């Protein structure tokens, strides 16, 4: 273990400055409360104290999880998504603390979209929200209309875009979105967002969120 206190050795005959002693002691105390790491402990001690296994891989993890189970057979019990083009909260919220580093976020969820009565209607797009900001790298459902699904007109054999906004609108679907983020030390919040790519000129179908499970792995890597 590296020598921490006192930072300068007292020797016989040394005239102690009480402010100097206190300052060194306060520094040591502050390290106990936040400044020590594995380098301050012998490997064998650390192995016993922390894991009873072995110390390797420069990764430490804290895990956070929340899960809500909803029966897909009962749409009335699912979470109704507001008919808006703005990102809205769809649950699965987790507050987590980080010492600063990386965070792996996974959100797995069931969707319900009663779109049969309005085949031209939009579906949903999804994203992970981190600290109030949609993380567009996690966007599920592209904004690229050239990828829109096409349907064949039986009478003319022409291809008709479904105008789904390249979104998800099936009666039932199961998705998972995930991302790796760099976060500062402190408290953070993640949750699932959904939006309709457009809501004009149509009745917005009934879209709902079923079971949601959010997993956050905070890494100090």
């Amino acid at each position, binding site marked *: 273990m590296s020598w921490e206190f006192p930072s300068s050795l007292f020797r016989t005959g040394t005239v102690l400055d009480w402010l100097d002693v206190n300052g060194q002691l306060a520094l040591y105390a502050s390290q106990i409360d936040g400044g020590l790491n594995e380098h301050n402990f012998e490997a064998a001690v650390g192995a016993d104290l922390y*894991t009873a296994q072995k110390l390797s891989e420069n990764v430490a993890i804290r895990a956070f999880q929340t899960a809500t189970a909803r029966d897909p057979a009962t749409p009335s019990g699912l979470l109704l998504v507001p008919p808006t083009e703005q990102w809205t909260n769809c649950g699965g919220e987790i507050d987590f603390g980080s010492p600063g580093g990386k965070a792996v976020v996974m959100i797995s969820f*069931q969707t319900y979209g009663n779109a049969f009565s309005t085949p031209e209607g939009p579906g949903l797009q999804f994203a992970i929200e981190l600290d109030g900001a949609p993380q567009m790298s996690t966007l599920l459902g592209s904004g690229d209309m050239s990828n829109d699904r096409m349907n064949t007109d039986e009478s003319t054999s022409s291809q008709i875009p479904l105008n789904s906004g390249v979104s998800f609108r099936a009666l039932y679907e199961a998705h998972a979105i995930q991302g790796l983020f760099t976060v500062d030390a402190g408290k953070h919040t993640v949750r699932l967002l959904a939006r309709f790519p457009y809501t004009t000129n149509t009745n917005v179908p009934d879209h709902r969120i079923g*079971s949601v499970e959010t997993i956050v792995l905070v890494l100090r890597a």
Partner: protein
Amino acid sequence: MSWAPSFLVDGQTPGVSTVNTIFTAASTYVNALDRYALRRGALNVHQTPSVIATQGASFPVSASHSGLGVHTYDKATAAGTITYTAFGTDGATDRHLIGGPTAGSPITPSAAAQVSITPTQFVGNNGTDQTQLILVMFDLEVVDVTNSATAASVMACLQFQLDGAGTWYTMSKTERWSSRDDHKSSPTDSNEKMWYPIAIRTMIRASTVNAVADATANQVSGIRAMVSSSSAAGAIIELGSYRLSAIPLLSSLV
């Protein structure tokens, strides 16, 4: 933390006894730190040492099938009904395991979508095991659902088994449905394949085990994925690639 240092004060003569008392209090506190003190929060996350994410030579474990092979499942190959019955129902009577009977399939799966947890794991810091959770990730491609006149959904869920035998417990939070007809431009066109994904992420923790057994007495020994059809009319499910992974973590769990 429970220790606050004593400080010298202005005007005090820092004799040997006074200084020694301060030093002794500091060293006594450090020497007294043990696993339980740490778990109570004597140190915080900044002091967390390097922790291995997986333990045991066999972890993480995974089962997968890749490539363009299609696994075909129908009522005959499933040796009984593959009809979904109820939310959260345990056991194998109402769902069919991927990688099971494959009659009619052009390619035999390379592995079942089932993984064994060896050695079996207490989840939740019991005994000598330090596993706090098992992270499970499952991805599956649904190719098509045929031979069904009515709209058919494909159901999937994840289950776990305890102590190497007996009931496979369904985690209701992982039950997923995906509907066929609105994934196709023409539900009656047998030439049109869907190739849409079902993705599930979940976490097995002490509370998961405690919901059906005792996390301090029962160990997780296996995890598997199940698939079935909502149609009782003998629907045939065609599945593409899949991967099921399980990673026991030594993480702290909040």
